[in-house]
């Protein structure tokens, strides 16, 4: 009788493991509700450095400076922050030709139920496509291998690469 219950699995450890496989130990962030557990996981890990931002494009500056100095860094933010950062993103991609990994909570799709996120879901991918910035969808743990793959692509292309994180990639709701 009754349905089998499932125990939610935390996604954050698998994402941090992916960052470590990529050699990334520096993450700057501006929070989003979907990112809370991942930010806590990074902050609690002594092998990782977490930098809190006041605007997301600062984080791209940090990624760029870290790369200049030989350290690998990522930005962790919502897609609103990605949209805000487009000038810096284009500057790193086409002027400086500097790699960076952007881990972006992809709000505004079918997993969201708020009007104020919907516009972000409608414009994020068209904006990235128009800019010529590579991006990949991370829909769940089966896609975490893309984290180190995206970093490698970023280095080979000498430009930032974006991972668009679905809610299911960040939280297992046990369904």
């Amino acid at each position, binding site marked *: 009788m009754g349905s089998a219950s499932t125990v939610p699995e935390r996604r954050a450890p698998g994402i941090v493991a992916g960052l470590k496989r990529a050699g990334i130990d520096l993450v700057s962030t501006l929070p989003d509700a979907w990112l809370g557990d991942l930010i806590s996981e990074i902050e609690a890990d002594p092998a990782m450095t977490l930098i809190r931002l*006041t605007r997301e494009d600062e984080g791209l500056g940090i990624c760029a400076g870290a790369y200049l100095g030989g350290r690998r860094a990522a930005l962790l933010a919502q897609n609103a922050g990605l949209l805000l950062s487009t000038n810096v993103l284009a500057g790193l991609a086409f002027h400086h030709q500097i790699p960076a990994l952007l881990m972006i909570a992809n709000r505004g799709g079918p997993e969201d139920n708020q009007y104020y996120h919907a516009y972000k879901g409608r414009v994020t991918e068209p904006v990235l496509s128009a800019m010529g910035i590579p991006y990949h969808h991370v829909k769940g743990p089966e896609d975490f291998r893309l984290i180190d793959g995206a970093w490698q692509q970023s280095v080979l292309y*000498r430009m930032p690469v974006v991972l668009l994180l679905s809610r299911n990639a960040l939280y297992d709701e046990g369904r």
Partner: protein
Amino acid sequence: MLKRNLVGSLFRKHLKPDALVIGGLGSAGRTWREQNAPQATYYASDPMGVGVTMALGLALAQPHREIFYIGGDGDLVMNLGCLLTLVGSGVSNLKIAIFDNRRYETGGGQSLAAADHYSLSEIARHAGFPYAAAAADPASVEVAIETFLAQPTLAFMALAIAMEASPYGPPPQWSQAEDRAVFMRKLAGEM
């Protein structure tokens, strides 16, 4: 008020030879370039507003070296919140020097917003910088710069710079990406 070249030459004189420099865009970066300083320097160029955090990233990547940022006020105030980010990061190996003339000098000398009202050093101090100072007097600026550079902490200095003509030069020979590769190879000891 201070002449740009005086300030640039004093930083060249007192900055540690093994320091790494991030030069901002506009006249501050051009002033540093004109010094032909021995320190490895990367010019942040555009996009405007991220030079300071680029210096922070370098400081986080090279924690055992002194990182020096020299840039303009217009560039800084485009992303003034970065001062909080710097303080929150906890780095101690980063010095921020700002040419404070309250003008977009390269753009034609247009005034910054609230140009007659703010104090950048006070803003930095209240953002939590362990050391924040201002310098405006040519007679005392060398001591002020020495004191600033000797700080063992994150430090900020606003330098009141007199308006001078600052025209664009000709197109540089090397692209930003080529300069970036040279900077990184110098840092790696390959050049």
